[in-house]
């Protein structure tokens, strides 16, 4: 029952928020308390070994829409709850229209539903609902650049969803069902058939547009960099992850391990390369979202227990620190008058102290300083990588992360008399606490043996060396400028690149059988 109530109650609260705008704060608190209760009930059932599973509609599982509260789904739902709480606290005192909170609730509701659903078409509708909600959220302030970024987002994501719909059609034509648990047995029984490859490639390409995979999510840098901080945090922390959860679910059914690894490596490396060359901090964060998705995909594609758990923990960890980064940078940029590095450095004394401390925690988290969230998740993930080559790629990405975040160093240290508002500090503390206490919390998700193994001396030394090397490299290359193609981000080219990406996925699936 909690499985259905979680999303539906959010939808009810969404409608209530817009009907009774005055009681918004009450509804916000109420919805979070109810969600927490429902989520803990689900977690209890999962721990007992009987994850809840329901089939909505008067048909048995496999025909009606099935929802399942398994590990992947529950992790994501908890992340959604945490980020929703953080964003609610962040916007507590802002004068925003009820419309904003309606969209927020719808977005969170669709995240809950997506994390549990095993039905392809239901997932399609949830993706579209979240697309529309975040589309409106990005353009909320009506600035032309936001509107343009939003439009770009809608066009690409709708193209991706059409490709996804074609995939659903191919699946249905051959299996006569859309439920992933049933599909799994059918696909396993017919390995290497051409329709499996076609359907898999179409579905993966469609979701990849939403999942922040580099050659597909070309709308992402603009949309994430231009939206309001609270919206960027949700987009980066949650909406992208909806696609990632979709890929996880597909990964259980279709043979796409190799595809995920290669896509992960591409998006990881290219994201870093673009991030290195970004001096607008919000844009840098947006490119980093792409690169961090790379870790998650590589971890999941490795198809080992530790890799999978590492990917899940990294998904949560990334949600925490990326949301915190966007929120703090957003406030800093608002105080400093601009989000490019120069303005931030010049006005760094205007950044409130609480914000700065939170920013430091988030940066340390993302570059993987032990024992913060980034380190823990990355270490678990690395334990699960089967080959040396993958290790090397992941190391390269870590170094790149450090190099690009070294740019922020001058902003981090200054004295300031400004103070952040209490609700904002609460929101920072909530996320920052999550980053610091990630290790004890991750014991809920990952078995102690694996977590403890992550804290071996080797990993700690590796993390410190990476940070040192990254810092040193930054001083070597910081004067260099290089031009990267920006043509691919234009509306005229990006649909073509998505189609080229489809060929790539198709080829990788043929190779990966």
């Amino acid at each position, binding site marked *: 029952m909690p499985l259905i109530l979680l999303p539906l109650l959010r939808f009810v609260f969404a409608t209530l928020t817009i009907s009774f705008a005055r009681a918004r704060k009450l509804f916000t608190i109420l919805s979070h308390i109810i969600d927490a209760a429902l989520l803990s009930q689900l977690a209890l059932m999962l721990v007992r070994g009987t994850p809840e599973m329901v089939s909505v509609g008067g048909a048995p599982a496999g025909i009606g829409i099935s929802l399942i509260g398994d590990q992947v789904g529950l992790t994501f739902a908890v992340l959604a709850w945490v980020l929703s709480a953080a964003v609610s606290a962040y916007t507590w005192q802002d004068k925003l229209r009820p419309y904003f909170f309606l969209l927020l609730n719808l977005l969170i509701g669709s995240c809950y539903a997506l994390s549990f659903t095993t039905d392809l078409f239901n997932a*399609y509708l949830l993706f*579209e609902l979240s697309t529309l909600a975040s589309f409106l959220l990005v353009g909320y302030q009506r600035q032309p*650049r936001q509107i343009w970024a939003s439009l770009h987002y809608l066009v690409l994501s709708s193209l991706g969803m059409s490709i996804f719909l074609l995939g659903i059609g191919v699946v249905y034509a051959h299996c006569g069902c859309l439920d992933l648990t049933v599909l799994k047995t059918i696909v396993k029984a017919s390995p290497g058939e051409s329709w499996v490859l076609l359907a898999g490639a179409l579905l993966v390409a469609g979701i990849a547009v939403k999942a922040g995979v580099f050659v597909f999510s070309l709308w992402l840098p603009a949309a994430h960099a231009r939206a309001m901080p609270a919206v960027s945090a949700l987009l980066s922390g949650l909406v992208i992850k909806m696609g990632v959860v979709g890929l996880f679910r597909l990964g259980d059914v279709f043979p796409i391990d190799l595809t995920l690894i290669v896509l992960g490596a591409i998006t990881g490396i290219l994201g870093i390369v673009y991030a290195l060359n970004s001096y607008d901090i919000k844009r840098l964060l947006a490119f980093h979202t792409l690169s961090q998705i790379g870790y998650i995909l590589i971890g999941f594609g490795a198809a080992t227990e530790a890799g999978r758990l590492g990917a899940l923990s990294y998904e949560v960890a990334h949600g925490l620190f990326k949301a915190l980064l966007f929120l703090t940078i957003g406030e800093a940029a608002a105080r400093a008058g601009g989000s*490019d590095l120069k303005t931030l450095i010049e006005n760094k004394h205007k950044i409130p102290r609480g914000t700065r401390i939170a920013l430091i925690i988030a940066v340390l988290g993302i570059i993987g300083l032990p024992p913060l969230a980034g380190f823990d998740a990355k270490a678990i993930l690395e334990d699960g990588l089967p080959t040396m080559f993958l290790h090397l790629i992941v190391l390269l990405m870590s170094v790149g992360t450090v190099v690009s975040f070294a740019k922020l160093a001058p902003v981090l240290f200054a004295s300031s008399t400004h103070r952040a508002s209490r609700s904002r500090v609460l929101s920072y503390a909530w996320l920052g606490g999550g980053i610091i206490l990630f290790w004890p919390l991750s014991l809920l998700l990952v078995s102690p043996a694996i977590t403890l193994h992550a804290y071996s001396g080797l990993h700690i030394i590796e993390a410190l060396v990476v940070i040192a090397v990254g810092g040193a490299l930054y001083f070597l290359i910081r004067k260099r400028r290089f031009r990267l193609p920006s043509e691919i981000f234009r509306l005229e080219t990006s649909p073509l690149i998505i189609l080229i990406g489809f060929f790539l996925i198709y080829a990788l699936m043929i190779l990966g059988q």
Partner: protein
Amino acid sequence: MAAIIAFVLFGIGVVALVLRRDLVIKLLALGLINAASILFLVSIGDRPGARAPIQLPGDLGIVADPLPQALVLSAIVVNFAILALALVFVMILVERYHTTDSIRIEQEMAREADDQETPCL
């Protein structure tokens, strides 16, 4: 056969989406792409000699598969929602830039405040 037509329509839609510069026509092309995937779904449920899926119990005639049709109803509405919202955003952009040409809007936007990275350090 209908499936092939659906794929061709999908292709026409993407061509127009990429090559036409007018934003309104881009949106129409997007609608065509969605309509093409919807046509593909409907074509799956159809079978030779079938009737429409409306029958009383005990009626054993061959009918078209009702599931794709039910799915498609939702997809059509989603398509409408996308087209309407995107149109509103295009209208806002046009009010600002007085043109629907996507390339010109991009140029204007770049001129307005250079979005390119301002190097520093």
